C-alpha cells in the first residue's frame, strides 16, 4: 500500500517534470537587445503585421490600433487580446526583442507565463527570427496607448498555468518554416505565409475537445462560438482551389470576389484587414501553395437525405418572394454582383452554417481597392422565422440539380441564438 503510494507520487513527479521540460523546448537565452531597430525593419514589420492580420484581434472595435481589448470567445471562456503598443506599463514597452521572439516562437510571455493558444503561436512559431524582430520593431514604433489589459475570463481549470502547461506538452511543439528544395520559391513562400504568419489553419481546421487543431491541415472546421464553418481548402467540394486558374485565386484573396466564389463572414474581415493589402508576389505565392495542396474529399460523402416535399413547396414560395430578384428563377445569379446558387459548392457543402448566417445576417463583401463598393445582401433575421428560413434553404440546397441536405428549423434556431 505504502509502496504503491510512493510509486504513484514518483510517477506524478516524473510526469510533472516531463511537462515542465516539454514546455521549455527550443527556447533561446534571453539576450539584451543588441541594436536599435532600423527604419527598414519598422517598414517591413508594418507589412508583416498586415500579413498576420495582428490588428484583427489586437484592436478593439473603434479603439486605438494594437491597444488590445478585443475578446476572443472560446468554449473555455473569453481570452482578451493584450495591448501591443510600447506603453511601459500596459504594453510591450519593457519587452526585448528576445522576449518577443520567445512569445512568437515558444508562446511564453516576457514574465515567463505561458500564453493561451487563442494567440496562434501554434502557427506563428514557424516565422523567422528576422520577421519576428521586424514585427517587434514596428510595434515599438506605434504611439503608446495606456489601455490596460483585460484579464481573461476563463473557468477552472483553464485559468491555471498548470493546465496550460499540460495542454502545451500534448499539443504544441515549436516549429520552423518548411523549406522544400523540390518546390518552387513561390510555393515555399506561400507555405510560409499560409502555415506560419497567416495562421490560416487556426480557423480552417477542426479542433478537438481541448481546443487543439486536429484533423488534416486546412481540412476545414467549424469556428467555435462564432459557428461559421471555415471550409476545407483542399477539398474540391468545399473551398479547394486546385481546379482554379491561379489569377482567380489571387483575385479572390486580393479583392474578395472571383468568378468561382467570394468571401463572406469572418473571411471578409481577413481579406479587408489583411490579404487585400499584400504584395502581388505574396498573393501569387499563397495561391500557388493553396492550388497545390494535396486534394482531399470528405471521408464519407453525406447521404443526400431526401428533402421533404412540404418544405420544398414552402421554400420555393419564399424563394420566389424574397430571393428571385437577385439570384434568379433558376438560381443562376447575376455575376459578379449576385452569386449563382445553382451548382454553388458554398450552397451544397455539408455544413449549412454559413448559409444560415448569410440569410439571417445578410452582408457585404469587403470593400477593397478592386471592389470598393460591394453589393449587399439584406438580412432576413427580422422577417423570416426559423422554420421559414430552414425551408427556403432546404429548397435552395435541393433545387436546380443541387444535391445538398435538408436544413432543419432547429439548425437555424441554434445558429440564431449563437449555440
Amino acid at each position, binding site marked *: 500500500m505504502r509502496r504503491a503510494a510512493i510509486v504513484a507520487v514518483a510517477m506524478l513527479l516524473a510526469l510533472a517534470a516531463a511537462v515542465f521540460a516539454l514546455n521549455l523546448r527550443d527556447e533561446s537565452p534571453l539576450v539584451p537587445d543588441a541594436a536599435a531597430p532600423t527604419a527598414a525593419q519598422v517598414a517591413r514589420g508594418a507589412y508583416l503585421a498586415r500579413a498576420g492580420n495582428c490588428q484583427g484581434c489586437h484592436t478593439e472595435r473603434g479603439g486605438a490600433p494594437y491597444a488590445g481589448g478585443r475578446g476572443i470567445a472560446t468554449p473555455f471562456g473569453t481570452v482578451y487580446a493584450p495591448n501591443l503598443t510600447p506603453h511601459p506599463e500596459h504594453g510591450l514597452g519593457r519587452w526585448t526583442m528576445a522576449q518577443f521572439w520567445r512569445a512568437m516562437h515558444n508562446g511564453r510571455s516576457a514574465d515567463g507565463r505561458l500564453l493561451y493558444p487563442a494567440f496562434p503561436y501554434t502557427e506563428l512559431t514557424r516565422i523567422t527570427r528576422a520577421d519576428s524582430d521586424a514585427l517587434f520593431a514596428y510595434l515599438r514604433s506605434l504611439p503608446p496607448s495606456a489601455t490596460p489589459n483585460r484579464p481573461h475570463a476563463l473557468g477552472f481549470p483553464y485559468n491555471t498555468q498548470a493546465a496550460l502547461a499540460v495542454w502545451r506538452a500534448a499539443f504544441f511543439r515549436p516549429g520552423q518554416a518548411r523549406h522544400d528544395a523540390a518546390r518552387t520559391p513561390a510555393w515555399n513562400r506561400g507555405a510560409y505565409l499560409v502555415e506560419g504568419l497567416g495562421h490560416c489553419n487556426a480557423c480552417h481546421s477542426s479542433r478537438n475537445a481541448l481546443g487543439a487543431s486536429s484533423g488534416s491541415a486546412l481540412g476545414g472546421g467549424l469556428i467555435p462560438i462564432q459557428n461559421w464553418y471555415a471550409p476545407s481548402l483542399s477539398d474540391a467540394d468545399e473551398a479547394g482551389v486546385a481546379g482554379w*486558374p491561379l*489569377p482567380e485565386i489571387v483575385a479572390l484573396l486580393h479583392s474578395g470576389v472571383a468568378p468561382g466564389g467570394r468571401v463572406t463572414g469572418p473571411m471578409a474581415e481577413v481579406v479587408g484587414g489583411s490579404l487585400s493589402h499584400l504584395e502581388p508576389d505574396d498573393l501569387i505565392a499563397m495561391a500557388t501553395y493553396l492550388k497545390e495542396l494535396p486534394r482531399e474529399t470528405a471521408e464519407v460523402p453525406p447521404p443526400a437525405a431526401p428533402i421533404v416535399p412540404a418544405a420544398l413547396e414552402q421554400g420555393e414560395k419564399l424563394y420566389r418572394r424574397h430571393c428571385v430578384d437577385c439570384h434568379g428563377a433558376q438560381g443562376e445569379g447575376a455575376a459578379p454582383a449576385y452569386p449563382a446558387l445553382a451548382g454553388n459548392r458554398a450552397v451544397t457543402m455539408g455544413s449549412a452554417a454559413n448559409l444560415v448566417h448569410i440569410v439571417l445576417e445578410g452582408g*457585404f463583401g469587403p470593400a477593397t481597392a478592386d471592389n470598393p463598393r*460591394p453589393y*449587399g*445582401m439584406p438580412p432576413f433575421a427580422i422577417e423570416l422565422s426559423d422554420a421559414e428560413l430552414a425551408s427556403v434553404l432546404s429548397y435552395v440546397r435541393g433545387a436546380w440539380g443541387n444535391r445538398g441536405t435538408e436544413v432543419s428549423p432547429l439548425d437555424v434556431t441554434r445558429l440564431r441564438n449563437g449555440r
Partner: protein
Amino acid sequence: MRRRLCLFLLLAAGWAALPAAAAPPVVPDTLAQRLLACTGCHGPQGRAARFPRISLLAGKPADYLFHQLQGFRDGRRQYALMTGLLDPLSDAYLREIAEHFASLDLPYAPVPPQPALPVAVAQRGAQLVREGDAARRLPACTQCHGSALTGVAPAIPGLLGLPRDYLVAQLGAWRTGTRRALAPDCMAHVARALSDDDVGVLAQWLAAQPVPQPAHPAQALPAPLPMECGGVPGGVAR
C-alpha cells in the same frame, strides 16, 4: 509589382469571359442597387421604416448618417445586425452610402391620425421641446435640431416622423451609454438630464407631430449651439 497583379486580374477576367453560355442579367451599377441590403429593413429607398424601431434614412443630413454608419462599425452604437453588415466597409464607401440616402428627397409618409395627446403631455412636451428646462440646464430641442425640428445640415438629425418606440429606445440607449456620439457627446449630457417621465413625454409628443412638407433640414441655426457637440461643424470650440 502592381502591373503584374493587373495583368493577372486581366487574365482572370478573360478566362471568366470565355465560357459564358448565356449573357447574365445586367445588374444596375447604381448605389440604390448595391444598397438593397439596407432597404430590406429601412424600406424602399430608405424612405420609411418597415419595423417600429428602425429609423428612416432618406433625406437625413449626410454627416449625421455617416457618423451613425461609422458608429455602428466602430462600436459607438450597438446593434449586432448593423455592425455585422458594416464591418467590412471602408470610410469612403460609408461616406457614399450616407450621401446617397441624404440626397433622396422623398415626401415623408403622413403620420397616421392619432388620438389627441393628453393635455398634460401636450403642455409638458411642448415646453421641453421649445423651451427646455433652465432649472436643470436642459436646452430646448429646437436649439440644436432647428425651430421646425427637421434637423440642421450637415450633422444634426430631424426629430419628426420617427416612431415613438424608436425615440424611447434611442433616448434610453443614450442614457445608459450604449449609444454614443462623437466626443464631446452633447446628446448624452442631455439624455442623462432627462427623467424617465421626460423620455416618455418627449417620445409621445414628437411622434404625434405632423411632419412639414418638405421636411428638409435647415441650412444653419440662428444662434450658436448651447453646448459642445462632436462631429458638428462649429460644435467644438477650437
